[in-house]
């Protein structure tokens, strides 16, 4: 077993003093069951090659972009819109009669004159052209860095456009310099959806379906949401709204009509789940759809919440059915991957969610971390009251909501909810560290140099991260899988998704290419000379 403390010290030793002091707080060696304090959601030091993106990437790229039937205008120079065009794999299928703009890219393509004289007019004209050309259900406007600096009032432009065209125009001040990572953008996006969209369309009582669920923090990457919904529908649930994968504008407007919020990505949306509960009385449950056991536990938890006998028995039936369909495949892949080690550096939840699935194919996660997680994602929600708010966080608007007297509805009696909280992850999340094994390492905002160092020292068989790390790790002879885009495969969620992941991982680890990394002449001594009599023999 590697001495992880030595490794951590060695990594830190290479840093200049100030960097070392900073990075030290972001690295935790889990030596026992205790949860240590980790620093997270703080500025990346300039010059450090970080994987982090910006608020715009979190707002438009992650949260708003997947909404299918909206025209998403990016107000700024061309690049920001361009890089978020078709690159996230948030799949979506428009409903009958709806429009699908997912394959489009819209920008005001600001020029120097717009920077000098202001871009408000151009934005107003762009919205007009979007309405005339595409007649969308709604429009979003996302601001990029220069917009905030030159003082374009995108909110005023959006308001006027709403009046003029009679469709919602949502403006997001998600300039890239806000906050310290994508996380700021998730907040900016979700706060707006909470304020202006959720709760605006009521479903009449007679049209409401029983056992209605929302899936929050699920972006349908590689079709994950479709696979999750397939199973939920089979049991008898009605998936009302997904935020925001495979969602249309009206789905989000109706979200408050459901019976329970399921929170998949804790980081990007837990605060919205809290607000929906305060305003509309709908509790939320932390779920994990990744891996067989996590999926089954999640399904059982949801059934327990509703407490319906039929639902509970159908849940067991479906779990049994789905498990029996995949068990041979999973055993096959486990056999191929058993005993290998993994590292995960992804997202605000995936580095936690995938550990169960990796374990199911026999792989231990020895190192994990988040790109843009907060302390509660690592240490659990109990730490929230103790998190110090720094200036960067305070610059991001915090909204508070109040009970909506007309629409507030207790889903289950308060006493029963309190009872359920004792057995279910209702309004609760224990964080990533709780599930990490002893002698594992947790690193927040893992950077280029640290990645190289830990790969060299620990030589895992699998490194799950993004495209910026992937090829560097693979040059070192180690399989690296993009966990944002699944290397263009998927779905990975649910039962069938587990098989896809296991198949791809086994292939990645065992592809014959790895055996050719070192050429034969560098492995074997070259024989020089001639075998006597060989020529005659031929």
């Amino acid at each position: 077993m590697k001495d992880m403390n030595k490794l951590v010290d060695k990594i830190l030793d290479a840093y200049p003093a100030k960097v070392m002091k900073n990075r030290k707080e972001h690295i935790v060696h889990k030596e026992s069951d205790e949860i240590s304090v980790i620093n997270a959601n703080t500025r990346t030091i300039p010059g450090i090659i970080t994987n982090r993106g910006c608020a715009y990437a979190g707002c438009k790229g992650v949260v708003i972009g997947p909404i299918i039937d909206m025209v998403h205008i990016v107000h700024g120079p061309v690049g920001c819109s361009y890089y978020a065009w078709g690159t996230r794999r948030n799949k979506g299928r428009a409903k009958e009669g709806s429009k699908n703009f997912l394959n489009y890219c819209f920008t005001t393509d600001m020029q120097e004159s717009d920077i000098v004289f202001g871009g408000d007019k151009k934005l107003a004209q762009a919205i007009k052209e979007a309405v005339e050309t595409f007649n969308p259900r709604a429009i979003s406007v996302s601001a990029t860095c220069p917009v905030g600096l030159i003082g374009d009032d995108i909110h005023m432009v959006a308001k006027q456009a709403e009046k003029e065209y009679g469709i919602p125009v949502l403006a997001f001040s998600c300039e890239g310099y806000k906050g310290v990572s994508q996380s700021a953008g998730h907040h900016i996006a979700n706060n707006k959806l909470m304020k202006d969209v959720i709760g605006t369309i009521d479903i009449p009582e007679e049209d409401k379906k029983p056992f209605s669920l929302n899936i929050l923090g699920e972006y349908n990457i590689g079709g994950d949401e479709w696979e999750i919904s397939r199973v939920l529908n089979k049991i008898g649930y009605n998936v009302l709204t997904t935020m925001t994968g495979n969602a249309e504008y009206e789905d989000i407007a109706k979200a408050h009509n459901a019976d329970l919020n399921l929170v998949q990505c804790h980081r990007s949306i837990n605060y919205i789940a809290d607000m929906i509960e305060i305003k509309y009385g709908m509790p939320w449950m932390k779920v994990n759809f990744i891996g067989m056991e996590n999926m089954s536990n999640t399904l059982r938890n949801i059934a327990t919440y509703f407490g319906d006998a039929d639902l509970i028995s159908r849940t067991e039936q479906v779990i049994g059915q789905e498990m029996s369909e995949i068990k041979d495949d999973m055993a096959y892949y486990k056999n191929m991957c058993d005993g290998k080690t993994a590292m995960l550096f992804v997202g605000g939840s995936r580095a936690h969610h995938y550990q169960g699935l990796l374990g199911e194919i026999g792989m231990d996660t020895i190192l994990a971390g988040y790109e843009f997680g907060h302390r509660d994602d690592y240490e659990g929600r109990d730490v929230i009251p103790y998190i110090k708010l720094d200036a960067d966080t305070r610059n991001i608007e915090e909204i508070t909501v109040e009970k909506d007297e007309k629409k507030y509805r207790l889903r289950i009696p308060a006493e029963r909810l309190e009872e359920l909280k004792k057995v279910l992850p209702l309004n609760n999340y224990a964080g990533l560290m709780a599930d990490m094994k002893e002698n594992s390492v947790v690193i927040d905002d893992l950077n280029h140099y640290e990645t190289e160092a830990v790969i060299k020292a620990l030589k895992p068989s699998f490194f799950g991260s993004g495209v910026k790390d992937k090829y560097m790790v693979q040059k070192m002879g180690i399989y690296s899988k993009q966990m944002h885009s699944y290397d263009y495969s998927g779905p990975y969620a649910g039962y069938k998704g587990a098989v896809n992941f296991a198949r791809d991982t086994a292939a990645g680890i065992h592809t014959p290419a790895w055996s050719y990394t070192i050429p034969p002449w560098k492995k074997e001594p070259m024989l020089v000379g001639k075998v006597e009599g060989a020529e005659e023999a031929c």
Partner: protein
Amino acid sequence: MLNETTKEIKDRSALVVNPAKTCQPIGAMYAALGIHKCLPHSHGSQGCCSFHRMHLARHYRDPIAASTSSFTEGACVFGGKSNLKTGLENVFAIYKPDVVAVNTTCLSETIGDDLNDIILSTKIPEGKTVIYANTPSYQGSHVTGFSNMTKAMVTHLVNKNKLIGNGRLAVIPGYVEPSDMAEIKRMFAMMNVPITMFPDTSGVVNSPNTGKYEMYPEGGVTVEELSDLGNCESTIALGSFSSEAAAFELEKIADVEANVLNVPIGIKATDDMMMKVMEITGLEMSKELEFERGQLVDLMTDIHFHYHGKKVAIFGDPDIIIPMTEFVISLGMIPKYILTGTPGNAFEKAIGKILADAGIEDSKFKAGGDLMELHQWMKNDPVDMLIGNTYGKYISRAEDIPLIRLGFPILDRVGHSLFPVVGYKGAMRLIEKISTAFLDKYDRECDDDDFELVM
């Protein structure tokens, strides 16, 4: 696919839909990677750097290392000076590059950071170098960014005290693939002409897998070579949009004659380059290259009926699609639409002349256009083939015509970083692609009765 794109064209003056360009900094980052042991540094929000690394890594399927000043809101208010100073100190301490090439972003340009001032006031370790280029995202395109960083290599690194001719040609390859740069180097080697190519990303962003990660692979032009550029005999700058600024700068500061040519895509542009090399050096044409040219002509005559008379739409970067337009004409095809997102009258002038010389009258061409407009042209008067980058795949599927992937970026296929499209060899590869695409479509769609063994 793209169901909301109507045949009817409505004028748009403010909304760009499906752009055919991206912003300056990514081009600057790509150019900077063509210097040996250089770490590109993006002076702005960390999102810019992240997007550019992501996009380049997807295009090359290779590690792209670059650092950032990681601006926060505070930096926007007080200026990015301390971020860049701290950034440079950390970069040299941790990543140990020989050179750092700083590019600005729309953020640092809008707040008006003076890079010269900041870099001068930063302690740079001995023997290390920092160069910079202003690359505001709200001007030009990624091609402009490449051009600006290439020019910066001359401005900041060329030793102005001209000593003695070094007997070399300076060759600026333009915003092309590492495979193309390697092919251009091969062609000059076959002519026995020593060159200094800058930037040179071959070997950097198409590096081998050896089981060892090299943050700074073997490729790239060295600082010493760049410093010696002023002693070159002459400059061959390929592609006016990406290369002429650096060539003129070198002419200005070190009196090295600038020769601006097209990127050698297709037979004519390659012939032009070879003629210029012979003119400058007085050397005769390489026998091997003449042999390759003969093979190309042989291929062009033998299979012209696979594509002759077909109409094609071409989009992408000016320096790539100007010679490509010329090439498809030499294949007997009709370039019906030619569009770039990069602004600039020079593009329309060049294409206008190529079409006029070929007597082609009813083609449309545009600089500063977008792919929605190109698609609408195609809906009104269809073509048989689309040539352009990966973003053309939506249109190609919507209109059920083949897409030949050419230019930047190619995110969904491989080959571009390994096999060239320039030179005679590259022209043969392009013909193979064009011919195969037409024949594959025919084979897939024709009636059984018409299915042929020999074609």
